[in-house]
């Protein structure tokens, strides 16, 4: 691991100065390919309806689900469409799930005059015991009952259910299955330790001074200024840094200038301007020393709908001078030194968190992998571009490292798939609150959290470090 490797060199810094100080060369990029092309939008047209994305999603996922259903319930199981269903006959149906939730915010209900309702306050979860599941395929829809837990499923999931239709017009489910993991190409073995640093939620412009020191310490470790020779040597093995979203804090999104009178806000500058300037300086320091990939997040100045397009380079005049800086999309997919990375800035996971009973972000991440779709709730509750030809959020190939940013705490797990796929799931925590980043070792596919702290007046018992009694 990073620490053990770092500790192997002798400590030299608590001694009088020596003239020869070691300089380490950063590990060169042996191979890097950016495969985020499906997430780049060229000419955008919003004149289409969202029904097309569901249609193409079902069309693409159907073959995967049929093969999984046959594997699970035997080759002889009958796969039928809803229009061919006979009452009482046991069969398997493949379709898209729709969850009818009474608590789901609905704009129509909000503005309806007959209800005279006040707008709903935002809640952390919108689930309710009365949620109902409906299965839709190309032509029809049918209510689901039985052995299926509505609280764990969300709208937009494509799945296969085994059961039979009843005279009442409902489908009683005995078992269900997902598309599970996509096929995975094995990663070529590496001979030296190489690390990729995952950080998310820098939260600049948020006004919290403590996290700024943490950010500076992070940059110093990666650029090799901090630490003893051993640590600097290990830091030289960090071949890439990925900033997974929310570089700006949500405080920069205040819309005061819209609500206040013009004469009060005339000379004020948007909070994001200063924050972006700070970000530019940080990116300059980082890209002068290591290749950086910057993904936009929920509070960053780019489009709102998924897939979010890269931040515009004109915002970073200092940092774009270096070719090591790469501005990428959210979600982001790339192959670094033979290891496939796929990740998002966390909007997909937090949206599923709101509409299901799953509590752990890492568990939700694993669930999206098993459903073979990055964000099934788009476009229902999460903004999405109206695709119509293909749904780019379907996993066509299984990644080796799958991460999501801006989770409340760090989490990492190795997940094994049915065809011996091995995926490292990483929940990258929000840096502005946890001061923690993730170091992924590409050789062993393990992840180590790395956290930073300063000291404050109240830290009498090392509470800030997490080392307290």
């Amino acid at each position: 691991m990073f620490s053990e490797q770092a500790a192997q060199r002798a400590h030299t810094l608590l001694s009088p100065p020596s003239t020869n100080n070691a300089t380490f060369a950063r590990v060169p990029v042996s191979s890097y390919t950016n495969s985020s092309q499906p997430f780049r939008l060229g000419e955008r047209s919003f004149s289409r309806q969202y029904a097309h994305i569901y249609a193409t999603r079902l069309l693409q996922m159907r073959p995967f689900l049929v093969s999984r259903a046959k594997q699970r319930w035997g080759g002889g199981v009958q796969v039928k469409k809803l229009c061919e269903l006979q009452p009482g006959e046991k069969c398997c149906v493949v379709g898209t799930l729709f969850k009818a939730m009474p608590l789901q915010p609905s704009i129509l209900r909000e503005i309806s005059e007959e209800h005279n309702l006040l707008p709903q306050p935002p809640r952390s979860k919108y689930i309710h015991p009365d949620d109902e599941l409906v299965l839709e395929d190309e032509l029809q829809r049918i209510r689901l009952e039985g052995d299926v837990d509505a609280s764990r499923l969300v709208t937009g999931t494509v799945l296969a259910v085994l059961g039979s239709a009843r005279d009442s017009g409902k489908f009683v489910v005995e078992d269900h299955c997902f598309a599970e993991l996509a096929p995975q190409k094995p990663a070529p073995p590496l001979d030296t330790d190489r690390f990729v640093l995952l950080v998310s939620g820098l939260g600049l412009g948020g006004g919290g001074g403590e996290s700024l020191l943490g950010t500076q310490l992070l940059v110093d470790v990666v650029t090799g200024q901090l630490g003893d020779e051993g640590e600097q040597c290990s830091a030289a093995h960090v071949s890439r840094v990925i900033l997974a979203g929310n570089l700006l804090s949500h405080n920069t999104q205040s819309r005061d200038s819209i609500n206040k009178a013009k004469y009060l806000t005339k000379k004020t500058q948007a909070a994001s301007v200063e924050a972006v300037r700070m970000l530019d300086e940080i990116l300059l320091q980082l890209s002068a020393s290591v290749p950086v990939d910057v993904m936009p997040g929920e509070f960053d100045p780019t489009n709102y709908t998924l897939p979010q397009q890269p931040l515009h380079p004109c915002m970073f005049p200092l940092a774009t001078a270096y070719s090591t800086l790469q501005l990428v999309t959210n979600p982001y997919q790339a192959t670094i030194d033979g290891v496939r990375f796929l990740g998002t800035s966390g909007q997909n996971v937090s949206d599923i968190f709101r509409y299901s009973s799953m509590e752990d972000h890492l568990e939700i991440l694993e669930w999206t992998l098993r459903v073979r779709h990055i964000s099934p709730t788009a476009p229902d509750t999460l903004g999405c571009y109206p695709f119509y030809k293909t749904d780019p959020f379907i996993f066509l190939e299984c990644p080796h490292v799958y991460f999501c940013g801006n989770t409340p705490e760090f989490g990492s797990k190795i997940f094994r798939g049915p065809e011996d796929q091995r995926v490292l799931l990483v929940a990258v925590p929000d840096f502005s609150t946890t001061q923690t980043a993730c170091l992924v070792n590409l050789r062993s596919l393990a992840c180590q959290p790395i956290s930073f702290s300063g000291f404050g007046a109240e830290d009498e018992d090392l509470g800030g470090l997490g080392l307290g009694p």
Partner: protein
Amino acid sequence: MADQLYLENIDEFVTDQNKIVTYKWLSYTLGVHVNQAKQMLYDYVERKRKENSGAQLHVTYLVSGSLIQNGHSCHKVAVVREDKLEAVKSKLAVTASIHVYSIQKAMLKDSGPLFNTDYDILKSNLQNCSKFSAIHCAAAVPRASVESSSSEKFEQSNLQVSSETPANNELTTNGHSPPTSKQIFQQPKGIMGMFASKAASKTQDANKETKTETKEVTNVSSTGNKAPGKGNVMSNFFGKAAMNKLKVNLDSEQAVKEEKIVEQPPVSVTEPKLAAPTGLKKSSKKAEPVKMQQKEKKRGKRVELSDDETKETENMKKKRRRIKLPESDSSEDEVIPDSPGDYEAESPSPPPPSPPPEPVPKTEPEPPSVKSSSGEKRKRKRVLKSKTFVDEEGCI
């Protein structure tokens, strides 16, 4: 001895100037490797404590290592006060590194000032921020200032930008910005060549001005066209001798663009001028689709206006005037064929009463104004005003 100098330096910083001396601050100030700076700090602390045990020195250390937390081996990096150092060390399972982070006279209540010190010294050293660091990345080289290939790409994909000269290039809002950066960068060189006395500051001002002015007009697509065209023209103007003659239709627009990038006049004067032609520009810009055409036009105009040795200000003046009086274009068109010959004569002496009464008065004050940098601004203002007056009369 040079070796012991650093001790005195640190002493001076800490005790006399009451500064917070972090290892990074020391590394930039003394120009040494970061590790050496850390060792220097440690050495200083040790010696000072040995000499004078009651020394008023507070030291903060950086400790890093791993410890088991929640089932993972977590790597921790922490800045701690001296009194907490041993406690933290004992909690870590593996200690990766310990070194002095900073020295200061007063006890720090929290780590905020440490960040401020580092931030300040970093701001002043942004361009070589990893000069003294222990890791050097071979791949991290700043892009060359002129990168035409990547600029072409910008037009096709919305991704890259070639804004190498950060302060100057803000014309990235449209796809035609690529050559702009090239031009703008070359212009300072050209301008510098032209004006012996002019300081680079003027150029900066002009560029900044360009920036702000261009910002106003960036929404006009052809603006981008103009800028590269103009830039090319400028470089051509400086480098080559003969150019083709081309009819100049929309002189005012081109002039505006050139003026924006090239000129050195006071901002106040140019802005009002630009406001008027901007409107004109916008309307007529749409009619001019091809960048090359504009480039050629500009080139033609340039050539016609002057030979290489003519001073730039003259051109600027001429352009400026054109902007001011777009309606005088037609007269200037006639003027153009005559001007090349006239120009050289014009500059030193009062111009002959040739068709362009306008260029004449313009060039007259130019040589004197160019020479004196101090009174220049004023002179130019004066010149312009009088020119306008003359022009209108002339026109009328």
